[in-house]
């Protein structure tokens, strides 16, 4: 039996277990526990920890740390992640790996202190200048958060690509039982700077950018093929299929679980990878499905755009896509159901 652990603490400990060499960050609600925990835990475990002057500084510390081949983590929230984007783009340009935990707070600008899913598009579209994608993984439980953080370092290294753990304030703050994986000892990666000029790294100023683009496209295709992750229930005969991730993903699973006990044919795809979007999940969906419905803790719905895009790609182009959005915090099942009833009654216009 595991013990009750806060999501933020669990993710920090998972990073230690995964062999993280360095953490750099700047505190911000609702992600601060990650940094507070690291401030003593990293030292105890013999790792580096730096409280940076800003989110920007923290990300450039991560950039430097990755250049010498270390496993490196940063975490922030909302506008803090926005500040990091310049460095994220630099790291992608250099093909450097890192793991970045984004504990989403609701809203733009300063946002609120409350939980939300309003940063979906930023994380899944790259976030900074240039043509790149971060691998984005989103847990629904504390245990899954631990497992995904642990996995993220390996994926990041394998593809030399940033992995974002996109979670919500609510998951960072909630407690649930979880078991930690074993400690891994990972040496510094051997492709990195060692001071001996063993691995000359091409300068962006002089490299063949077209060649690089082709290489990156091939990598993107490989990630898209290999790294789609999701949990699906009841989609084979569903009249409506929910798409959701994070806490709303759990809520959608609960709604479907309940509905199917009553004999109502609902299905759910709980996305775990947000980029690559789990488009393969469509392959199992009932061809006569009447509608797709995203459940999102956001103003306007963001994931619904991906659902519509991939529905079209997968031959569901005529199926209407709806979104059920909810205010900051954790959506109440009863409110989601009320909105879903309105969708079924034809009172709500589809988004796409």
């Amino acid at each position, binding site marked *: *039996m*595991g*013990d*009750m652990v806060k999501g933020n603490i669990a993710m920090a400990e998972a990073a230690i277990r995964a062999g993280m060499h360095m953490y750099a960050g700047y505190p911000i*609600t*609702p992600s601060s526990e990650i940094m507070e925990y690291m401030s003593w835990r990293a030292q105890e475990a013999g790792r580096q920890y730096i409280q940076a002057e800003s989110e920007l500084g923290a990300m450039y510390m991560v950039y430097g740390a990755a250049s010498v081949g270390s496993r490196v983590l940063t975490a922030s929230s909302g506008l803090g992640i926005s500040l990091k984007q310049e460095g994220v783009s630099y790291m992608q340009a250099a093909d450097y790996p890192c793991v970045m935990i984004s504990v989403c707070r609701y809203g733009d600008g300063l946002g*609120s*202190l*409350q939980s939300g899913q309003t940063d979906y598009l930023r994380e899944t579209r790259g976030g900074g200048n240039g043509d790149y994608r971060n691998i984005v993984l989103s847990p629904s439980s504390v245990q899954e958060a631990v497992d995904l953080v642990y996995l993220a370092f390996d994926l990041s290294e394998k593809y030399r690509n940033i992995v974002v753990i996109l979670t919500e*304030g*609510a998951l960072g*703050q*909630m*407690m*649930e*039982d979880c078991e930690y994986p074993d400690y891994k000892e990972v040496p510094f990666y051997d492709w990195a700077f060692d001071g001996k000029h063993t691995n000359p790294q091409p300068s962006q100023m002089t490299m063949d950018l077209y060649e690089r683009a082709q290489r990156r496209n091939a990598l993107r295709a490989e990630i898209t093929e290999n790294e789609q992750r999701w949990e699906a229930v009841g989609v084979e005969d569903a009249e409506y299929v929910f798409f959701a991730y994070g*806490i709303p993903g*759990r*809520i959608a*699973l*609960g*709604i479907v*679980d309940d509905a199917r006990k009553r004999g109502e044919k609902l299905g759910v795809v709980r996305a775990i990878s947000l980029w690559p979007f789990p488009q393969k999940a469509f392959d199992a969906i009932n061809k006569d499905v009447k509608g797709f419905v995203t459940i999102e803790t956001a103003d306007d719905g963001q994931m619904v755009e991906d659902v519509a895009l991939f529905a079209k790609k997968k031959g569901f182009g005529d199926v209407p896509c709806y979104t059920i959005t909810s205010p900051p*915090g*954790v*959506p*109440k*099942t*009863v409110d989601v159901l009320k909105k879903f009833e309105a969708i079924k009654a034809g009172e709500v216009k589809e988004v796409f």
Partner: protein
Amino acid sequence: MLKEVVFAGFGGQGVLTAGLILSQVALFSGKKATWMPEYGAAMRGGTANCTVKYSDGRIFSPGQEAPDAIMALNIPSFNRFIKILKPGGIMLIDSDIVTCDTNVRDDVKVVGVPATTIVNELNNPRGLNIVMLGALVKLMGDYSEQEAIDGMNDMFSKKGKNAFEAANTEAFKRGYASV
């Protein structure tokens, strides 16, 4: 069977800890549990609260929906949460503190425990939340007294706080016996 309990009171009364103990007792008894605090701007309004769910099976929503029971340690908490208590649910209050008119819904059960008086008798003012938890566990009927005490002591022991084991056990028992 999924159960939902809200713990609410002033910051410092130990309501978040009481919720955590209950969730840890659930794990100790082989169930699943979630603990969700209300945090951010709302928590600066005077009340702290958390929602605990436990179940034999998978817990879907960890959020506040319709609690089966509420522990309210101040009047603002009582007034706020009595509205969302499930019909037939239990509102457990410290009757020394929640002195307002509690007869506001006839479809729920309001139980008062003079917890402040009890902890003064025990000379253990910080044990208020545990006295209340003892009463709550008995009213919920999902865990035996000993099971809950063992789960609680296990949690504090893992945190290296065994020093308070005897006092905690005593407070829990007094609460358990009070209802």
